Every structure is written in C-alpha cells, then in structure tokens.
C-alpha cells in the first residue's frame, strides 16, 4: 500500500462522516427556515374541514355568573362560505347568518328582515363579532406578515388582506409539533390588545376534527365567551343555494 492509497481511504471516510452529520442536522436547519406562511396555512387547514356540517355553541359568562347560550347548526363550503341556523335561544330560533366572501348577511325571524352586517358588528351580545364567528379560516382574510420561534411554538403575525375587513393585527401561537393553534391575540390599529382566545380540548377522529373549544376574553370586559365546535361531519357537498342570501329564510323555515 503506498502513501497515496492510505490518504485516499481516510479522505473518503471523512467526507462520508461530514455528509452524514449534515444529513442529521438538515431537518433542524430546515425547520428554522420553514416558510411561516406555509405553517400558517397548514395550521388553518388542520382545523375545520373544507366542506362540512357542524354544531356551534357559544356561551357567554358575564359578571356574577350570568350566562347566555346560543346554539347553531352550521354548514361550511370552502374558505369563504359559511352559514349558521340558530336553534337557541328560542326567541331567535330559525334566524340565519351567512358569510359569503367579504359579506355577512343576517336574516331575523323577529322582523323577517334580511340585513347586511359589518364584519366588526357584535354578535348577539357576546364578546365576538360577526367576523370572529363566521370566518372559519383566517387565511382567507389575513396575510402572513412575519414569524418567529418561541420555545415549542411558532408565533405568526397576520395582517388583513388589502380591501378586507378585520383586526389590524392578529398574533397566532402555533404548536410546532401538532401545527395546531394554541392562542390568538387580536390587536387594534394602535397596537392595543383588543381580545385573546385560547384553544382548548381539540379532538380529532376519523375524518378530521370532531370537537374544539375556544375561550375568548377581553382585557377590559369582565366576561368571557366559550365557543364550541362539535358534531363536525365531513360532507361531499353543500348546495350552492344555502349560500344565497335570498334563500336563507328557507333554511330556518320561517
């Protein structure tokens, strides 16, 4: 064996070892460089299925424990179409709320009037606005702005898409392992915290999400609102007329 052959074996071994180390390190460096927009989109898509029906319960607990409860049956089709038929309270049973692209409609069984509602209008005496309730996928209304890592989570900053109504900024905390949201913080144009929500009790089954509870709170208001998505069922389709505002009174039957 000459000196050249011995040097050649050691050189190759070193090169192979270096490549192996690089391959081991590659996933972590890839995570650091992961597209925040991609994380946001994947997190959004993991939640409520694209086409489905579901039951939505909204409980607001006020000062001194005064509780208000609303229950709806919802139908979702894609990112921009969502309709809710009110079941509880009795007074509003049969009323229907519809979100279609940028517009929200509300049909009331009390005055039988179909009205357009702004995104920021308060929803039925809760801490939520119509946009909070009717917009099931943030990625339709918001653009990714920036992302950072913080321990086990990604912190994603979102701003409204041009021409869209919404909060000036939303900060979403997403678990790195599950890509599920843990918290959202909603900010005003002056960067004042308006409200926060915490995701709890997210359960998946065959076919996707089965149950999810979100707790909303506002710093200045002494009450909280619990939103529960349950009985989520994937559907092959929801008829287009469900999302025609002139037809929604037939959904409620009044």
């Amino acid at each position, binding site marked *: 064996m000459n000196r050249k052959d011995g040097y050649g074996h050691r050189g190759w071994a070193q090169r192979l070892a270096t490549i192996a180390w690089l391959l081991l390190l590659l996933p972590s460096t890839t995570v650091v460089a992961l597209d925040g927009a991609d994380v946001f989109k994947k997190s959004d898509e993991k939640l409520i299925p694209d086409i489905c029906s579901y039951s939505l319960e909204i409980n607001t607990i006020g000062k001194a424990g*005064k509780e208000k409860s609303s229950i709806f049956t919802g139908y979702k089709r894609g990112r921009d*179409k969502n309709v809710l038929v009110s079941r509880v309270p009795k007074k509003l049973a049969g009323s229907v709320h519809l979100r279609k692209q940028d517009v929200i409609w509300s049909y009331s069984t009390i005055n039988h009037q179909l009205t357009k509602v702004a995104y920021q209008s308060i929803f039925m005496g809760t801490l939520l606005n119509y946009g909070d309730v009717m917009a099931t996928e943030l990625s339709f209304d918001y653009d990714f702005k920036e992302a950072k890592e913080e321990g086990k989570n990604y912190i994603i900053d979102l701003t409204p898409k041009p021409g869209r109504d919404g909060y000036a900024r939303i900060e979403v905390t997403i678990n790195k392992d599950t890509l599920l949201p843990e918290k959202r913080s909603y900010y005003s144009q002056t960067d004042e915290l308006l409200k926060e929500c915490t995701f709890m009790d997210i359960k998946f089954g065959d076919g996707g999400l089965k149950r999810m509870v979100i707790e909303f709170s506002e710093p200045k208001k002494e009450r909280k609102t619990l939103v529960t998505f349950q009985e989520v069922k994937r559907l092959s389709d929801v008829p287009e007329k469900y999302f025609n505002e*002139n037809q929604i009174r037939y959904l409620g039957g009044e």
Partner: protein
Amino acid sequence: MLRIGTHPSNEVGGECRLRTNLIRASGLNWMGWLLFLLGVAPAESQAVEFRAEVYNEPAVQALNAGSSINPNNLQSVNQFQYFLRGDLDVKSALGEHANAFIKLEGQFYPASFLPSGADGKVFIKAMHLDFSASFFSLRVGKQYVQWGSSVFFFPIDVINTQRDPLRPIEEAEGSPMISLSFPIKDNASIDLLTYVRSDALQTLNKSIRDLPVLLKAAFSANQISGFVFAQYRDGYNYPRVGLNLDVTFSIGESLSLGLYGDLLYKYESDRQKVAPKDGALSVVPIPGNHFVSFVVGAKAIFNFSQSTWLDSMQWMVEYSQNSENWVHNDLLNYYLYLHFLESDLATHFKAVALKQEYRNAPRYLFLSLALQSLLTEDFEFRLSHVLNLEDFSSVLIPALSYSFENQNATVGLRVYAFLGDPDSEYGNSPIRGQVQTFFQYYF
C-alpha cells in the same frame, strides 16, 4: 295603538271576524288545519319544533281635547289599556325538502283604549308550507315578508300596507301569498309572488284578477346588494316599479356603516284627500300621475371594546320623501272636514280613516340612537324621533329594556310624546302622550 278608528283591536278584529267566517264557510276550520299538520307532520318529519311567546303591555295615555280627530273625546276613548298577546309556533320538517310552519296568536284586551272595552280573538297569524328543490324554492301560505332595507318608512312595501312602525314588529301580520324563488348561483335570484291584499278581503271571492303579482330580481356583488321589482294588478294602467340598494362596510375595527335607499314609482294614486269641490269640502282622489317615493338611510354601529360601561352605540337616520303624500293645506282641509262632521259620529269615525300615518307631509326624518349594554349587560336605552319636515311637529320615543333568561325574556318601558303646534300633524294628534310597560317571554 294611536289611531282612533284604526286601533288594532277594532281594525283587525273586523277583518278577523270576516276571515273566521270565510274559513268556517270552507268547511275546514283552523283547528282542523292544525290537527292535520300536527298529525301528519310527525309521521313524515324528522322533528317538530314548538315555540311560544307571551307578551303583556299595560299602557296609559293623556288625551288631547283639542284634536280634530277626537275633539273633546268625542269617540269616548279611555286612558288605560291592558293588552295581552300569546303566540304558539309549530314548525316541522316534512322530509328533506319541505317544511311546515304555523303561528297561532291570541290577543286579549281586558281593558282597552277604545270605548268598545274588553275584546279578544284567536287567529292564524302565519301558516305556510315550504318546498325546496335545487333550482327553486316555493312558499305557499300566510307569511310576513319584509320588503326593502328601510327601518321606519316603507315606501316600497307594496305588500304590508297597514303595518304601524311604532308597534313591536312581532305584531306585523302577513298576507296569504304564493312565493316562488329561483336562485341563480349564490348571488342572485328571481322571485314571483302573488298575494291577497290585506285590504282586499272583501273582494276575496270576486276574481283571481284582483290578486297583485310581483316580479322581483335580486342581486349582490361584494358589499353592494339590491333588488328591482314590478307589481301588476288589475286596474293599474301601468305597473308599479321599485328599487332597493344597500351597502355595508367596516371602518377600522370599531365602526361599521350601512347605507341604503328604497324607491317606488307609480303612475296613479289610490289615495284620497279632502279638498274644496263645488264650494264645499269633499273627499276626492289625489289628482295627477307619476308619483315617486323614496327613502335614503344610514346606520352606524360603534363598538366600545375598551369600555366597561357600554358595549356598542347604534345610530340611525332615515329621510323619506313622497310626492303622493298630503301637504299641510290638505291636512288643514282634513281637520276642517272632520270639524263639520262632529255631529255625525259614524261619518266622523269613517272620515278619520282617511288619514294615513307618516303620509301627511312631503318629507319626514327618522332618527334613532341606541346604547347597548349600558351600565350593565343586556340593558338598552333607545331614543327615537320622527320629524315632519313641513310643519316640524314630531314624535319623541324614549325607551328602556332589559333582557334576561338567555335573551328569551325582556322587560321594558316606552314613552310616546307628541309635539307640535295645534294645527300640525302631531300637535293635533288625539293623544298628547302614552306610556307603555311591557314584558315578553319566549319558551
């Protein structure tokens, strides 16, 4: 509530007696229909839903002895009233594509403003069957249809011509109709309606040609939506046409704004007025052709997310103009005409009905301010103002309400104050003011 000669208990009671007679004559009374629906529906349905409402309203009023409509209380109107209303709703899905709905209502006046005293009735407030397929939806029966975006003046509401906007909306009664709707994708529709006019029950048995027909085309594109319609009826030389436009948007994260307009054109008037004729005052048709009525309105809602004593403030303004309305001279002639009829109570009572609310000046303004969850959750203060822009008389309506039991129960107080010169529309009102308290409960 306020119109002597057109008080709900008398006006609707008269219609109810006729309606009840007609139903009995058909051999199938309303109880039979209810039993039929409840008997058949569960066998075919997936669920039967029930809902009930009770409402009671004691009220007191102060009379205006100088009113031309009720001079020195000629009509013997009382100052206290107690009104009770109960509703029972039954709704059932009949298979996958059909629904049935019936609303029974009972009204009872243990004490009434009107001299007739205690009165009561039970009637079918609404009853309809829905059938829905992929390319059309059909609703047949009695139903209330809200027509247009306006909140107080309803110029394009050619269907519900007798609704009093000062009364709770739950009291609005619909008309028997057939409504056929063809959705076009998810942003448009064509509707065809025919209905029995609420003022036409007398002609119910005459001819199907008496039934008006409405053709409506609705559309929406982003924040803008609206509809156009045409109404045909036997006796019209030309159809009546109407237009609605509506736009709503948010400004920042606290303010939302809605703007709307409704417009109606009709070739001829079917209204009357009092005018000099052959040297005496007579009731004559309103002359001329080409009448236009419209409203433009705005609604702003401001959310107070940082406040512990107020959730939101809602402000509304609505301007109404109608070329078919009376002018001040017509109103003065009407008052003079009533004065000449004071000795003939029956004719005086009939003549009172000539006047239509909010149609006695060319222009009106409605303003409303509502504060939601003021000081405490679910407590609302509302102040509304109706202003006659010709004689500057007005109605001022402050109101308080509190909801509880998961929004199913509401207690409240409403005050109506009629302000203006003695010969103005509201200054000459038969009452100076009225105070109502109410309790409403759904279960």
